[in-house]
């Protein structure tokens, strides 16, 4: 399945008592965008809106031109990997991945083959019966990515999933995501606080500040630009 394009048209949202966010931007089908910006600028809120975990107060969200209003998270063409708690602690690796296929765990032979394939791709072969607490932080996120693979949705949202990992491990994980992105031609959005990660893995970069998308451009154009308000200050260049 190839990627879907995503368009945000004046999407408004505010937490109770907080400043309102106002998002307008779009992500091309098959692009890999890194979202950067200061904390509180709305990065996580933006992808939560795309995933359907938050309801916008107004504005429109389109997947491939179709209005997503009123659709449940499970009905959207989206899979999300969180920073933490992606796994059910009492279920083993295989079952955690299998939940991506069927919530009631009714698995056909094909499903099992597919899960085995996803585990192989993410370097988890032989770990099927391990419990999450027996895995390293990097391995746990690999399980989450493997589940995203078996869900096979056009859009993959990543909310700083590698923030807790060391630099070398982080590169490995980004390479894995990059490979998957190329193979499946998914639309990938990665929230990150490290511009280097974005440069390393993404095709596009977007900058958020104070609840607005200030820029969203191809990586090369983005990092050489000097007309993006606030970016210089954020990057410290």
């Amino acid at each position, binding site marked *: 399945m190839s990627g879907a394009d995503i368009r945000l048209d004046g999407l408004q949202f505010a937490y109770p008592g907080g400043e309102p966010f106002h998002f307008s931007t779009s992500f091309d089908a098959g692009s890999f965008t890194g979202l950067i910006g200061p904390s509180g600028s709305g990065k996580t809120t933006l992808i939560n809106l795309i995933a359907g*975990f938050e309801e916008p107060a107004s504005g429109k969200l389109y997947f491939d031109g179709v209005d997503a209003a009123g659709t449940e998270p499970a009905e959207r063409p989206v899979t999300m990997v969180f920073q933490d708690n992606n796994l059910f602690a009492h279920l083993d690796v295989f079952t955690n991945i299998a*939940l991506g296929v069927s*919530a009631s765990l009714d698995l056909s032979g094909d499903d099992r083959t597919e899960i085995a394939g996803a585990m192989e791709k993410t370097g988890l072969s032989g770990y099927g019966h391990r419990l999450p607490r027996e895995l390293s932080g990097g391995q746990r996120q690999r399980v989450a990515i493997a589940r995203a693979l078996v869900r096979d949705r056009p859009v993959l949202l990543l909310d700083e999933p590698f923030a807790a990992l060391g630099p070398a491990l982080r590169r490995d994980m980004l390479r894995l995501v990059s490979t998957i992105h190329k193979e499946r031609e998914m639309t990938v959005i990665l929230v990150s606080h490290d511009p280097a990660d974005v440069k390393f893995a993404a095709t596009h970069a977007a900058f958020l500040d104070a609840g607005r998308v200030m820029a969203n451009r191809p990586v090369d154009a983005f990092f050489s630009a000097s007309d993006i308000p606030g970016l210089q200050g954020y990057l410290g260049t």
Partner: protein
Amino acid sequence: MQTSAATGTKPAVLSGLTAMVCIGLAVVTPMLALIAIAPAMPDLSADYLGFVWSITRFTVLQAGLSTLLSVMAAVPLARALARQASFPGRQAILRLLALPLALPALVVVLGIVEVWGRQGWVSTVLQHTGLAGPLNIYGLTGILIAHVFFNMALAARLLVAALEQIPPENWRLAAQLSFASRHVFQHIEWPVIRSALPGIASLVFMLCIASFAVVLVLGGGPRATTLEVAIYQSLRFDFDPPRAVLLAALQLGLCAGLFALGGRMATDIAVMASVGKPARRPDQATARLTDTLVIAAGLSFMALPMLAIVLSGVTAPFDAIVSQTVFWRALVTSLLLALTAASLCLVMAWSLLAAQRTIMRRRTPSRAAALLMSSMQAAGSLILVVPPVVIGAGWFVVLHRTGLVNSAAPVIVAVVNALMALPFALRILRPAVVGQAQIHDRLCASLGLSGVQRWRLVDLPVLARSLTLAFAFAAALSIGDLGAAALFGSADFVTLPLLLLQKMGSYRSLEAAGIALLLAGFCLGLIWLAEKLRPEATAQ
């Protein structure tokens, strides 16, 4: 660092040690006294032993059934409350669930009789509609209703707290993976409930084993008597200390055995209304109707007896009540007792916690330090294993031989009340003292902040809320206590619950209703004040 270790460490550990030894003495002395007179076991007739066997069986039976029913009712209620995060009045309902813990058992019993008694609301409705005859509340039925009232609320609160610990990502995953309600239960809720249940169930079981006022009033005679009540009766009805010893030994054995068997009890007693921002859940809308029904059922079960207390209380002849000297004496006695017990409880709790904090500060505690640490923790929850009536009975026997029962009564009751509140106070204070202070320890050390200055600038503001709450809770527990006071009550030593029991006994139900309302008002008022007065220093 050296100096702070030399000046700051020792006094804290010493005071903790002292508190531990005092608690040990307060509990162990009466035990030894009981053992000392145990050989003098006269006339234990076969009939009496048969009676003892029957009540031991009944004690376990009622506790087992109470636990089963409480937990079975608590699971759906907790699920419904956790799921319906935006249910109207949800916070108020959660607060209501925390009330029974602070309400005097005797007052609740009065409310329950008003609702479930032969002349009560439910019986009246049943008879008018011709559905069934009047209910008989005396015996096992009444005991179970009262125990479920107390413990369903406790268990439900603990379960809601456990369910709210589920990381929000789990709910997002559930939404994304289109979990149906049964999948949510199977993959998310049940694992959490299952791991919380053994602790909750053993706590409820212990509370029911040691329940006193409920069984005393609703038991309806020897048929439904528990060991706890039989201990009281052996001293107050038969005046037979050796029999009290036998019963106390049995009760102690039962509790200690269960404690050893059941292992850990619920480590976190939901005294505080510590409910976080509830998660948005994918299964909220579909389950709305059933959840509403479950919550309504639970709410009416909890609220009706409380309403009955208020309704019959407000029409009580207060002018007649306040014109009695004995009322004022009971009031003053109860207030002084509560003040003493709560202060004592806080001093003990603080000493234990400060010592533990100091020991924990060392990166690699020696084996002795680790042992000391676990003994201190054990001292704090000793009262859960050794029931208050057993401690009271032991002191009664000790003091009776020296002829000091009457003069020492208030002191013993205050100490026993303080011990009863200690596990709760520790649970309120521990996270604040140990957790928060751990964060500040290094900062304070690097700033050279220690001693009084640190207490004033850091500990007090951070702990003020927990300290007032712990104090209020201990005071409420002491004001409402019947078990310890009943053993020592006399013409010169009357507390409000004892007066209430007397009024109920002499069939002055109107005055009883007034005193019950006052008692409930005191206890809830204390908790309410503590929550109002707190400075918002903890919010960060």
